[in-house]
């Protein structure tokens, strides 16, 4: 995979992912509202929110949280660039973890006790989902013989045929990665069920806008990972991947609207057990085959 291709992918991802992610976030809010018997906001509401945040006064507490969030955005863009240009899946997974770490540092930098609790919980979420992400990448390697995402196009059947167990495990941690209930520990979308606003308590204006844009990009990337399991043969099968990614996205919204938050102990235990059972067993079977 050439450097130019990765850079081109990164630029394209940085331009297109916020657009797609914004529309997905808007559709998410409408679908959630319909599930609750409401009409919901306009489709472009997340865009309006971010435009408003960009117009707010700059009142950063530490003065550096904006810079950390910019770093998080850049790492997210590179992670998406590596993945969507057909590059290394493991690299994509590590880069998106770097983005998550910068987000956590941004929250810690304010020294606010509320933001620190949120940052601590965000760290726990990273601890909970990271083993499964690595096992997912290993399962991908065993199924395709390469870490290059473009390798799926050379297969005769989608990797989900041999890695369906790891896929179930990945779906489980997708809820944590998308920060959906019951695993929205670091920052709930709803007031009054959170310690002020968790990890984003001290972020406002432009910094908060960056957090929102990062979430949009993350959603697109993670749905890309989901779709990857269902692609084979040639680029025409990308449509199958998109369909299954959207199905997974709908499932996440359904879960989000139907479950109350769990304690962090339950999240960590269940995520690791799922990683061990689904990821571990799947990898053992693939190695024996």
């Amino acid at each position, binding site marked *: 995979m050439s450097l130019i291709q990765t850079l081109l992918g990164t630029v394209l991802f940085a331009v297109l992912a916020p657009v797609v992610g914004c529309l997905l976030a808007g559709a998410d*809010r409408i679908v959630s*509202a319909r599930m*609750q*018997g*409401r*009409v*919901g*906001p*306009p489709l472009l*509401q997340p865009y*309006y*929110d971010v*435009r*408003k945040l960009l*117009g*707010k*006064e700059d*009142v950063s507490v530490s003065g550096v949280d904006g810079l950390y969030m910019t770093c998080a955005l850049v790492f997210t863009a590179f992670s998406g660039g590596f993945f969507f240009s057909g590059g290394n899946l493991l690299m994509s997974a590590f880069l998106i973890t770097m983005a998550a770490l910068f987000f956590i540092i941004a929250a810690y930098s304010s020294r606010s006790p509320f933001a620190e609790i949120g940052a601590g919980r965000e760290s726990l979420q990273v601890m909970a989902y990271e083993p499964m992400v690595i096992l997912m990448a290993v399962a991908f390697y065993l199924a395709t013989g390469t870490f290059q995402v473009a390798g799926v196009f050379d297969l005769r059947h989608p990797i989900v045929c041999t890695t369906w167990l790891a896929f179930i495990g990945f779906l489980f941690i997708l809820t944590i990665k998308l920060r959906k209930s019951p695993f929205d520990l670091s920052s709930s979308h*709803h*007031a*009054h069920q*959170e310690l*002020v*606003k968790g990890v*984003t*308590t*001290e*972020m*406002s*204006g432009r910094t*908060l806008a960056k957090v929102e844009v990062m979430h949009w990009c993350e959603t697109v990337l993670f749905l890309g990972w989901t779709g990857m399991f269902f692609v084979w043969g040639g680029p025409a099968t990308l449509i199958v991947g998109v369909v299954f990614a959207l199905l997974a996205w709908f499932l996440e919204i359904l879960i989000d609207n139907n479950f109350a938050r769990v304690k962090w102990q339950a999240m960590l235990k269940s995520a690791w057990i799922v990683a061990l059972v689904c990821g571990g067993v799947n990898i053992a079977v693939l190695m024996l085959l």
Partner: protein
Amino acid sequence: MSFATKSPWVIHYDASSCNGCDIEVLAALCPGFDLERFGIVNTGNPKHADIFLVTGSVNERNQHVVKQIYDQMVEPKVVVACGICACSGGIFHDCYNILGGVDKVIPVDVYVPGCAVRPEALIDGVVQALDILDQRAKALEAKRKGA
């Protein structure tokens, strides 16, 4: 219209009083009225809020809290006094510990009377507040460009 009016996030605080107005504020935010149609989100964080809904009169103990929340909010911002107690002190106006309406502590932009304030009146008040928010957002934008 600026983007500030398209996504007004609110924070509400009950200074003192019977709590009736606070319940009406939450009623207005409930699915029945579905204020999210207009992008209104109830946020528990003053740093994310654009509109401050205060119910109840201000007393000696919580005047600092009201001021603290107001100071933490990021410009442009507006304050709506919800209910007669928040407007003037209401039935509690001559209690020994009551300072009076919210405007004794922080600048108030819109007064919404009522005991308890009706959700419909509250929505009208917030719509008026949006006009003021729009002016402030434009003023801030002009200041930023001039600077």
